């Protein structure tokens, strides 16, 4: 610090405009620096949870006035027994899967895996819903996870058949 006031003579070969940059301790993380980092992290966490809070509030207020739309999924004729089909419900951004499990029985779920959102598909041979990412498995009849990392059931979509057309009518709320 004392040399700041002195006129320092610099050798000619060192006079390259950077000789006065002091790099001593530049990267050392001391106690105070660490605490600063932690405060910064706390701020980051605070900000990053705000959108979740906002979305939750939105959901909370939108609840009553927003019954799910009735949307056509497919014609009964196009979906053979034991087959599955992808569709989107309730919005274009939420992919879903319908499985014709019996002659007149359909099961539909939002097929974003409840582990890390990979698309779950219908394993025809296994008769289970399978997640390719970490081998999660779900029961077709209930949507409950039976193997792998997922812990929550897939959200079930209620379906209704009218005059040979399958409609999606809503998403069941979680019970747990």
């Amino acid at each position: 610090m004392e040399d700041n006031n002195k006129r320092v003579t610099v050798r000619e070969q060192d006079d390259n405009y950077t000789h006065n940059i002091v790099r001593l301790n530049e990267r050392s993380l001391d106690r105070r620096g660490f605490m600063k980092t932690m405060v910064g992290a706390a701020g980051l966490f605070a900000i990053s949870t705000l959108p979740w809070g906002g979305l939750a509030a939105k959901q909370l207020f939108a609840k009553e006035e927003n019954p799910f739309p009735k949307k056509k999924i497919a014609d009964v004729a196009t979906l053979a027994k034991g087959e599955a089909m992808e569709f989107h419900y309730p919005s274009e951004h939420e992919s879903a899967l319908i499985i014709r499990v019996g002659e007149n029985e359909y099961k539909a779920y939002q097929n974003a895996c409840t582990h890390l959102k990979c698309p779950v598909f219908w394993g025809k041979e296994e008769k289970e819903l399978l997640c390719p990412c970490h081998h999660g498995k779900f029961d077709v009849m209930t949507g409950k996870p039976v193997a792998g990392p997922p812990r929550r059931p897939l959200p079930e979509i209620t379906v209704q058949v009218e005059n040979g057309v399958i409609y999606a009518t809503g998403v069941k709320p979680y019970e747990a």
Partner: protein
Amino acid sequence: MKRSYVGVLLLCLVVLMNIIFTQYAVNFFYAQKYINVILLSLGNVGLFPIAWLIYKKEKNQGGVR
């Protein structure tokens, strides 16, 4: 003067709470327990001034420099 790590430990605790709150907030969101999500995100916001106060109080307790 003896070096004090109280601030460091307290701040570590605050950030640990942050992590837990965030994790639970996200999970509660998908479990549709929206009230809990709001409370947790407010909790996360509330932790920030606490962290800042701890820092302000502890930054000069470092002992010999």
